[in-house]
């Protein structure tokens, strides 16, 4: 199995206490990893480290054939990895403007960004919400907008922190559908969730974060099913 990125010796202390001491975390290419762990085990902290938002005490990153320390890896990570909060944060603007945010920051011309936003809205079935103020959306709609906003930037790895928490059944189903589509497009995904059953059908492996380290819990039963869903699965 090809790995997209490998993190070695992730160590961080918070408030003087060691929180994470992970020997190795490999992220398989084009696959979905489910990460579970009890409350306070450090899942969110780990995601913030993996997305370049939080500097760990120590880390080594193996990416695109390069061995890098934190400082060297940060630009690559911030380019290719996107982290989504448990409760998606949308800026005080319209849905369309939110989705265009990353494109505009990347220097995309307004007209080109607008075209991509229209396509992205269509992809997520959010066209009817395009001009709605993002702050007025429901939790499920916000999560879908956040996923669309991330997808438009073509990330290689998405880190989703409890993406279906506090959602009703329908919203969970819609979010789950978008996650399947993202995976089918070849995006590697790590999902932290207490509701393993909601995302189990798209997860290829199941890891658990316990006592600061990561260990495999089991190979997901849905692995084969997902392989069929994912057309990019066997691309090198």
């Amino acid at each position, binding site marked *: 199995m090809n790995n997209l990125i490998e993190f070695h010796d992730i160590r961080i202390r918070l408030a003087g206490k060691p929180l994470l001491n992970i020997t190795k975390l490999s992220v398989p290419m084009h696959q979905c990893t489910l990460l579970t762990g009890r409350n306070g085990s450090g899942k969110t902290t780990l995601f*913030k480290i993996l*997305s*370049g*938002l939080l500097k760990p005490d120590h880390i080594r990153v193996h990416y695109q054939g390069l061995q890098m320390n934190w400082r060297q890896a940060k630009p690559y990570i*911030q*380019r290719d*990895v*996107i*982290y*989504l*909060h448990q*409760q998606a*944060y949308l*800026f*005080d603007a319209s849905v369309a403007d939110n989705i265009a*945010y*990353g494109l505009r*920051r*990347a220097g995309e011309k307004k007209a080109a960004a607008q075209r991509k936003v229209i396509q992205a809205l269509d992809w997520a079935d959010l066209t009817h919400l395009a001009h709605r*103020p993002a*702050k*007025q959306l429901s939790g499920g709609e916000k999560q879908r907008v956040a996923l669309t*906003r*991330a997808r438009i*930037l073509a990330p290689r790895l998405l880190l989703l922190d409890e993406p279906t928490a506090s959602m009703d059944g329908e919203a969970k189903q819609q979010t789950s559908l978008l996650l399947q589509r993202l995976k089918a497009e070849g995006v590697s995904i790590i999902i932290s969730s207490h509701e393993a059953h909601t995302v189990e059908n798209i997860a290829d492996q199941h890891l658990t974060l316990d006592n600061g380290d990561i260990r495999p819990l089991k190979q997901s039963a849905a692995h084969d099913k997902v392989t069929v869903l994912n057309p990019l699965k066997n691309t090198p």
Partner: protein
Amino acid sequence: MDNNCFTPPRSKTLLAVTEISLASLTAFQLLLSGNSEIWQIIALSFGVSVSAIIIATPVALIVSFTLAFFQFPLRRTLIALFNTFMSIPAVIIGLTLYLLLSRSGPLGHLGLLFTSKAMVIGQILLCFPLLVAMSHASFQAADRRAWETAITLGAKPWRAFFTLMHELRFGLIAAVVAGFGRIIAEIGCSMMVGGNILHATRNIPTAIALETSKGEFAQGIALGMVLLVLSLSLNAGVSIFQGKGELRA
């Protein structure tokens, strides 16, 4: 002997009301007739205070953001200092600046005392702690996810800073308006380092103080009306702006 001693209280009140009414009428006439002296004072007042707020605001925003989002030694001490200096009397700033800028002071060679530049410096020192303290409160209460979301979506830190300011614009604008309100109406510092020189450093508050001390109420009332209109306009503007924000949320 003072004849007023024998004037009945009701007549005294009537006299005062009449005097104020006449002075107010004259004040209106002064303002509407385009009295050059009054409008020069108003222009100088606005020029000094707007310059001070324009110079102080960007620095204050960066300082308050740094205090709210980063941990470093003496951070808490700095926050406490800014909170304390927020209410420092203008006359203390004026006195300190006077001692620094006076001919025998360490900065006397700059020749800034009794100039509008000295007034700008004084007003910057006055509004800066207030701007920092109020903006810091906004940044401190900000949703950290706004910053993290901007960064994870590829924004450079300075761009994420602007995004965050946009998210906090209501609180930050209120801070700037409060800062402007503090300096446009202050008298102690402007009087000490400006010297209240006509056509050079006389601003609205120092002119009001001078005219009132001379018993010339009309000009004082006219200038007071300008300050009142400004205060009402600013507050109305902020209220409308914040009302729009509440509708969005």
